[in-house]
């Protein structure tokens, strides 16, 4: 009798299913995620943080954020995936945000069974901290320091216009010109890779601080740029340091 019972149990153990455990609550298959908070960084970028409240019945495979200027953005809109999950917290950084809009961010997480998306967290007035600008200049002036010192008012400033290489802003004082080309439409931020030409001569290493004032209107500040000024009598070039701040037309 005991032998029979043992052989019966052995057969039953052999056929014991080794498949995935069925969850009583169907929602237990899927992750649960929350958009925790949004932090505005000094450079104008925004760090969004999310939290995996529950991974679901399998481990998390992807987590990230979506972002839009309309409430409840779709998961595909401006999607950023997080490289890592620190405990149950993950984050991503969005840059080049427009200070004029309110942005909505939502966290999502996906496991092998499906995905979940959190509710939206919004942020207004994205843009960089203006205290990062190392100089405080009067608008619409160009200051040149060299063999002589000049402070020239701008006589004409153009609007931001599309060009063959990006977006161009032209500005003229009575005796000098400044031609700036951004690779993308300029919004609030710090730019180190914009193309700057002073009197049609390329200027290297200039840092530009852009503040968005209203739609299509930006303030551009350059605190220090090494330029060469041509003497109109001798025709020789002399090194000068330029600082300027001007506002584009709308």
């Amino acid at each position: 009798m005991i032998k029979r019972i043992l052989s019966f149990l052995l057969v039953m153990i052999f056929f014991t299913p080794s498949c995935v455990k069925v969850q009583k609550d169907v929602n237990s298959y899927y992750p649960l995620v929350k958009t925790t908070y949004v932090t505005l960084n000094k450079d104008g970028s925004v760090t969004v943080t999310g939290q995996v409240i529950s991974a679901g019945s399998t481990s998390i495979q992807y987590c990230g954020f979506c972002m839009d200027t309309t409430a409840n953005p779709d998961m595909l809109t401006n999607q950023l995936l997080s490289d890592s999950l620190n405990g149950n917290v993950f984050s991503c950084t969005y840059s080049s945000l427009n200070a004029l809009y309110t942005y909505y961010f939502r966290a999502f997480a996906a496991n092998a069974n499906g995905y979940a998306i959190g509710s939206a967290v919004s942020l207004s007035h994205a843009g960089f901290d203006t205290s990062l600008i190392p100089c405080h200049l009067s608008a619409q002036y160009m200051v040149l320091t060299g063999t002589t010192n000049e402070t020239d008012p701008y006589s004409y400033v153009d609007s931001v216009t599309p060009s063959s290489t990006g977006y161009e802003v032209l500005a003229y004082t009575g005796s000098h010109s400044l031609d700036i080309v951004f690779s993308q439409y300029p919004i609030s931020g710090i730019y180190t890779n914009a193309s700057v030409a002073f009197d049609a001569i390329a200027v290297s290493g200039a840092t530009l601080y852009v503040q968005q004032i209203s739609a299509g209107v930006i303030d551009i500040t350059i605190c220090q740029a090494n330029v060469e000024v041509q003497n109109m009598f001798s025709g020789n070039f002399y090194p000068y340091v330029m600082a300027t701040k001007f506002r584009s037309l709308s």
Partner: protein
Amino acid sequence: MCRIPENFVKLLFVCLSMYGGVASAQIGVETSLVSPNGDIGQFYKKNISADIYAMSGDADDRLRVRMGLFYTKLSPRLDTVPIYGVQIGGTPQTLVVPGILVDGKLSMEYMYGDISYRVIKIKKFALFAGIGIEGGKVHESYYRVLETVLTDITNSDVLVAGYKANSSIEYKINPRFDVYFQANYIHLIATDHSTNFTHTTMGVGTNVYFVTRKKSKHKHRLTND
């Protein structure tokens, strides 16, 4: 009203025809609670199933062979299931593409054959354990969308095959009837896309013995001698 599918009736006819030539063939019916497992456990609710089978031997046989038909219809657990795809290449980064899956009802109908061995018999109770094989079809219908990538409407049959393990406790009412409680583990795989339709069943049934074999007193006496 629940309508018996036409294919099920056809299969039943085939099954009974095959058993027509067996002189001692008996029949039985069983109803069980089906618990979806494997790939379908996430998507479908438990439901009742029906089995009808032909069986060799009689109530006192130690070895029993059955051949039967199984039918059940499962309803989805969720109205829409959140699914996603991963798009790699074509964009600057990997993109998680959201979507939905809307499951329709899933029906399973298959034929099985199993052999059970009586492990213990105590008075009118008997404990059986057995194994078997099965094959048939699963009808599945679903609507699947991955945003901007895929829209897929499926309404088709898939062929399935697998094995089963079963155990039962039977109570013999009289030489012509017994009732039992049975637990089955049924491992079922689609033959073309390897979807796992494994499920377990726990249910009650009854066996009806048209032909009974009374033990000969003479034979018994001879054995004792």
